[in-house]
């Protein structure tokens, strides 16, 4: 049964790829909209093996190498994500420790959660220009809230459980309470916050690069699209999807290792 389902999954993917190959070849879709998948994959292979984007536009712009864009994107994601985790986690702890503050901030947090921070990008350009800074700030602001909220939520859940009482009855000191009770107890919630923050930061960085940057994979997608370099555009999209999938499965693997001990 399991192998049959797995086989069917592959069949679905193959069928989809065949359709995507056939449509442009049959002339049903214009090449500006979609190139045959084989062309796209070949282009991706070319970009990866030569390290250069075959494009007159990027050659003229002086940024033909994949490395220049990849490093910009990865750097922005890394900095904004690290900021979201390193600032958001202690902020969540603070929010849990100070219930009054949490109650005061509650409505703002709800609004902030729902707010498309990204819509403020013109303001960020006005304030910080078009470099690395506004992209990283947007990525950070987009990712940080879920870390704060999940950290506070996880710790509050531990408080609802009996574990802190057990800890106190066993004579744990405050530091031991944090490290041996609250941290492992809240870990699943905290980790899913960290995982979501990565997704949010990545979305924000790629989207910002569309609009603000002259570097980065988002920028490559946007410029290729505007210059009708359809194969380059799809190759860059594939690269982004592949990278996110890789990072996500890495995080899921870590998370599962964490969960098997807990659930």
């Amino acid at each position, binding site marked *: 049964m399991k192998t049959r389902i797995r086989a069917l999954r592959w069949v679905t993917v193959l069928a989809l790829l065949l359709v995507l190959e056939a449509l442009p070849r049959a002339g049903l879709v214009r090449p500006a909209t979609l190139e045959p998948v084989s062309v796209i994959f070949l282009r991706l292979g070319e970009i990866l093996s030569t390290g250069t984007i075959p494009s007159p536009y990027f050659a003229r712009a002086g940024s033909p190498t994949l490395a220049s864009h990849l490093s910009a994107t990865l750097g922005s994601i890394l900095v904004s994500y690290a900021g979201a985790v390193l600032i958001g986690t202690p902020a969540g702890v603070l929010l849990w420790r100070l219930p009054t503050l949490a109650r005061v901030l509650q409505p703002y947090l709800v609004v902030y959660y729902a707010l498309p921070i990204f819509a403020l990008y013109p303001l960020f350009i006005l304030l910080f220009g078009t470099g690395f800074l506004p992209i990283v700030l947007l990525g950070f602001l987009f990712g940080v809230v879920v870390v704060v909220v999940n950290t506070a939520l996880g710790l509050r859940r531990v408080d609802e459980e009996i*574990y802190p009482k057990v800890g106190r*009855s066993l004579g744990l000191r405050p530091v031991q309470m944090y490290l*041996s009770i609250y941290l492992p107890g809240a870990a699943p919630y905290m980790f899913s916050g960290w995982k979501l923050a990565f997704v949010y930061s990545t979305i924000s960085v790629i989207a910002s690069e569309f609009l603000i940057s002259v570097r980065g994979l988002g920028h490559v997608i946007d410029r290729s699209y505007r210059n009708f370099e359809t194969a380059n555009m799809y190759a860059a999209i594939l690269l982004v999807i592949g990278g996110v999938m890789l990072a996500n499965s890495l995080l899921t693997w870590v998370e599962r290792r964490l969960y098997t001990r807990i659930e």
Partner: protein
Amino acid sequence: MPIIEVRALSKVHHPNTGAPPVEALRDVSFSVEAGEFVAIVGPSGCGKSTLLEIIAGLQSPTSGEVVVLGKPVQGPRTEVGIVFQEDSTFPWLSTLENVKFGLRARGVPPAEQEIQAKEVIQLVGLQGFEHHYPRELSGGMRQRVAIARTLVLRPQILLMDEPFGALDAQTRLLLGNELLRIWEEIKATILFVTHDLVEALRLADRVILMTRRPGRIKRIVETAAPRPRDQTLMASAEIAELANMLWEELRQEVVQEGRV
């Protein structure tokens, strides 16, 4: 000198939700001798758990005091261990790690932790499950882990808050017998809260019957039955009479509470 002295204890809970205050305990006094097995029985919500947590130093009384081993209780003490009703095993730790938990917190050297933990795991009959996680154990086994985690610290006083309350009848009976065996082996003093009269009579030397909320002491009876107590003894006329008498008193409390 009694090992536990509860003197004129009262407790009023002030919920921080702004709900009206709840009087949980009113003027409760009793004492427990070293080595005794005392059961506290009362209707649900009569403040039994509150009483136990005050003795454990996890809550402070509104008035009155508890003296344990000659010293007033001001917080959790190493001589006192408590086992809770709900599953309190740490799901992120294996059986062995759960049992070692308190030893580690007290800075016992790792090799010593291992020896003591394995000894207690043997005592509660969990050998072979050292490396299982709580999710892989049954409810009864998890409660054994929780008991072992408390016992490994060698408390002179063991407070048990309906420790078998969440378990099925057979497991309860079995664990009750095991508890008596352990009690005889470690020679601790046990204060055991339950709402099950038969369980109380089967296990304890003395049974303290409490009223509905606010909890007061209604009656204290000596069971005075010889040990070990088997099923024939539990079915004997004296025990049945005692159970009927206590049940009649308990019934009045439950009915007046309007819970039936």
